[in-house]
């Protein structure tokens, strides 16, 4: 909605109201407003895909949609707490500095999920995405204990 100032002394002034009807082609509960996430280094193997939007969709819960804006490459992601107990990621001081994390609550973790033809889902615990929910800065990291972590952890186990 936008309007121009109305000057009662100027009869040429027009009061303009624009109302934009949100375009919704999909009947799903998807809200177009997502959380913008910026990956300065892109994703591993896709370093030029830097800008994403993290979208919540009631039908996908607890998964979210990490929508790629620089390229047609999007992901289903999920917080690791839904997949394993005791998943702890040690974030290096460099990553803390890079992401501008000032307190532990700022740091959020999501993991990329793969859907398989047989309807099973596996989750990449080895290369999690850490983001700063205050600034939207994100990075796909390889934790120090990556050798012990699974690239394809099955869900539902």
């Amino acid at each position: 909605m936008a309007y121009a100032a109305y000057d009662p002394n100027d009869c040429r002034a027009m009061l303009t109201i624009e109302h934009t009807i949100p375009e919704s082609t999909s009947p799903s509960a998807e809200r177009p407003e997502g959380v913008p996430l910026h990956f300065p280094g892109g994703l591993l193997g896709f370093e030029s895909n830097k800008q994403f939007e993290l979208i919540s969709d009631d039908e996908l819960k607890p998964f979210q949609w990490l929508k790629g804006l620089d390229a047609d490459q999007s992901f289903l992601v999920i917080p690791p707490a839904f997949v394993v107990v005791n998943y702890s990621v040690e974030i290096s001081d460099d990553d803390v500095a890079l992401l501008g994390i000032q307190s532990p609550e700022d740091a959020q973790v999501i993991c990329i999920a793969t859907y398989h033809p047989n309807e099973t889902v596996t989750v990449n615990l080895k290369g999690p995405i850490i983001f700063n929910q205050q600034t939207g800065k994100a990075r796909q990291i390889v934790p120090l204990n990556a050798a012990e972590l699974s690239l394809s952890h099955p869900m539902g186990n």
Partner: protein
Amino acid sequence: MLVLSRKPKESIVINGNVTVSVLRVDNENVRIGIEAPIEVPVMRQEIYNEISQNNQAAAGSAKAKIKIKQLAKN
């Protein structure tokens, strides 16, 4: 590929801001130290490869999954 020979304690400089140093050489192992700016990710090649491939497969599978969802709705 640029091929250089180094002895332990010798280094290589890449792009003026990445330094690769040979720390120790055993029979089958070379211990390598890397200094790089914090925004430059450094990791074992096989890990980089497997995560890249996983990213690619995941993106493809997500696309397929969402398509199936939309088809099911209509």
